[in-house]
């Protein structure tokens, strides 16, 4: 127990002195939250800003009514087609409409390839509505839309934050063992520790305990920042959340053990962990929905632990729903990965460096 306590203190000190580890654990997720939050998370931002140029000086009442019911929050008027074009290029508005009383000409900035699809959908809606209106008709099919998702989840950014937290757990867990142990091996501190009466498992337990606490605090800071700065709301099931963070951290450290066993140099171990984390990040629905991916990549994502961790995190924070059975299976799988891989690590990874 004394050995464990000493190791706990030294591991905490080592972590506190490691600027890079501190950066990636605490600041990295916050930077992502800030960047993506300001781009995707602004609640008051209009759906799309339309620039309107009416050739006739008189305002068209029918068009005005259609635009006001189109879901657009902001319509700016321009005095000429050239001014409208400049407004689009300067990003004062997202897309433009020129109405000469007979035809609707929508203009887009060709460089906004990611967003033009949505603007074109709005444009079609405006055209359909104006077509009916021009012939004195209204829609015969009445449509009512009802949001049935979890109350907290009304924007993609709400889902992205738990995803970023999941990624931060993944990288912390992977690097904790792979980088740290290989670093100790290289510096020969592991050899020195192993000639003491310290059981190898005490070292692993100390690393795990320190990382668990730090990762947990880091996830809370991330949640807090996103709530305070971007007014995001969560409905957190604290028991589920805490157990998921703990088991996922242990599970990811278990995966890190595999890297530590395969790779000897700390820089290589860090690189391998980095590669795995990056590939998983892009295929696990952290930054864009999995449904956007082609079918074969959707199938690949099912095999990635980060996807399930992100889904579990979204469930635990109340931003999306899943069956309780699936959630506890995810928690159990991470716990099992950690429990199974840790003893393996103790036996094979924590041993003297061969010379």
């Amino acid at each position: 127990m004394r050995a464990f306590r000493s190791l706990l203190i030294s591991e905490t000190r080592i972590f506190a002195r490691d600027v890079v580890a501190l950066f990636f654990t605490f600041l990295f997720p916050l930077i992502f939250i800030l960047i993506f939050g300001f781009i995707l998370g602004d609640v008051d931002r209009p759906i799309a800003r339309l620039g309107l140029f009416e050739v006739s000086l008189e305002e068209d009442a029918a068009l005005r009514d259609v635009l006001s019911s189109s879901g657009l929050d902001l319509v700016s008027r321009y005095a000429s087609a050239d001014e409208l074009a400049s407004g689009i290029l300067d990003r004062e508005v997202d897309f433009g409409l020129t109405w000469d009383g007979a035809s609707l000409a929508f203009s887009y900035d060709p460089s906004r390839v990611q967003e033009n699809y949505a603007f074109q959908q709005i444009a079609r809606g405006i055209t359909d509505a104006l077509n009916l209106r021009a012939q004195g008709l209204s829609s015969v099919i009445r449509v009512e839309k009802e949001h049935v998702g979890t109350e907290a989840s009304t924007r993609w950014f709400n889902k992205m934050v738990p995803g970023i937290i999941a990624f931060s757990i993944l990288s912390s867990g992977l690097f904790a063992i792979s980088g740290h142990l290989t670093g100790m091996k290289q510096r020969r501190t592991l050899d020195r520790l192993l000639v003491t009466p310290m059981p190898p498992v005490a070292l692993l337990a100390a690393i795990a305990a320190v990382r668990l606490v730090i990762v947990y605090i880091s996830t809370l800071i991330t949640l807090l920042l996103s709530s305070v700065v971007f007014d995001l709301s969560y409905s957190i099931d604290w028991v589920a959340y805490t157990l998921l963070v703990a088991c996922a951290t242990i599970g990811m450290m278990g995966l890190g053990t595999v890297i530590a066993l395969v790779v000897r140099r700390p820089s290589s171990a860090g690189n391998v962990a980095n590669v795995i984390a990056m590939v998983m990040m892009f295929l696990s629905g952290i930054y864009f929905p999995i449904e956007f991916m082609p079918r074969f990549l959707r199938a690949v994502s099912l095999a990635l632990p980060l996807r399930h961790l992100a889904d579990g995190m979204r469930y635990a924070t109340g931003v999306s729903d899943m069956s309780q059975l699936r959630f506890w299976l995810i928690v159990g799988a991470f716990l099992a990965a950690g429990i199974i891989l840790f003893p393996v690590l103790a036996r094979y990874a924590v041993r003297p460096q061969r010379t």
Partner: protein
Amino acid sequence: MNDILLVARNHLLMALRERITLFWFMIFPVFLLVILAVIFGHIGQEGEISFGISLLNLDRGSSNAFSTIVEETFAELAQPQEQGKEPLFALMSSGGGEDPDAYIEAETLAVKRGRRTAFIIIPEGFTRQVMEQIATGGAQETATSGGASALQILYSEGNTSSAMAVSIIEQVLAGIDQEILARSGRFDAARSIPLMTTWVGSDAAEGSYVDFLLPGIVLMGFFMNGLFGIPGSILFSRDQGVLRRYWVTPHTVPRFFAGLTLGHLALCVVQFAILYSVGRFALGASVSFATAPAILFMLLAIVTFMAVGFLISSLSKTANAGMAVANILNMPMMFLSGLFFPIAGLPGFLRAIVYINPLSYLADGLRANIGVESAQFSPLLTVLIPIAWIAVATVIASWRLKWDVST
């Protein structure tokens, strides 16, 4: 001259032999290019994306019922339009045998849990309500056509694909709407207001996502190459005493520097060739880099990122410290440059990073020069800011960079 070429060759071969370097400089940019092009290059395009939806028709009457027309239209859209392509919708439909309440409960849960993107409920009395609307010219709602007979779409707002599916469903319904009104003689399709699309900017044509992405990924490759490759090369060689061995030969620092620069340039050319080939031949990019301004911009980018690499090397005592600094700078600089998404909505303090980030200007300048984006910065700034970075980094590096381990 031979010694310069030898250093250049050495730098290039070392980079190509190191598996991890190969991954970050060659494989990762290609991976990113392919993955982003595959995902975002076909947003909303039929055959490339499929939405799982569910439909329940509670208005099963005669085969001519309007509810049946709606149901059949969605069933048709659930068939692949071309062999090998995905249909627009993967449709789950109630066979009619189930208890409607249980079906609604199950499918609503499926939408909540993300297993379906949307659930359409055609209510009882839907056909009657449509008939009444037609009878009144579709102009006004009748007293009996209350909310009870409106077609319901259940969806999850926070689920992007759900929101996208709903917008497509609405377009489909608008089409059915016009068709019904046209067949009933109310709507004259010939008098439809024409919809025209124009593209503002130099090309006046819609750019493809790959064309927009490719210059960004090329710059990202150069950026990572400079940010990690240069400090990696100098600092690891210095820490391991490799550089010291150079200095006991007639080889001098300026000649080593020249060789390193040449090797780095060769690596960037290889990197560009791979990315361009993948973009052009595998992903169908049509953008051309073969113009003098584009080539000069890419050279400016390579030199700027090299200078940043030298700056990091000069500020770091060890190779590990250099890599740590590069790692810390990498993501914020990359994401706050407009390489991958627009940065218009950023607040002042993050915008400040955008404005001092050379990558922002280089990305803007290169894209504007090859005609895939309208310039956000003045052309002068896109050249001056990177040159300022080169100047500052060169001054600091020549003052602080140690070419040998401290003894």
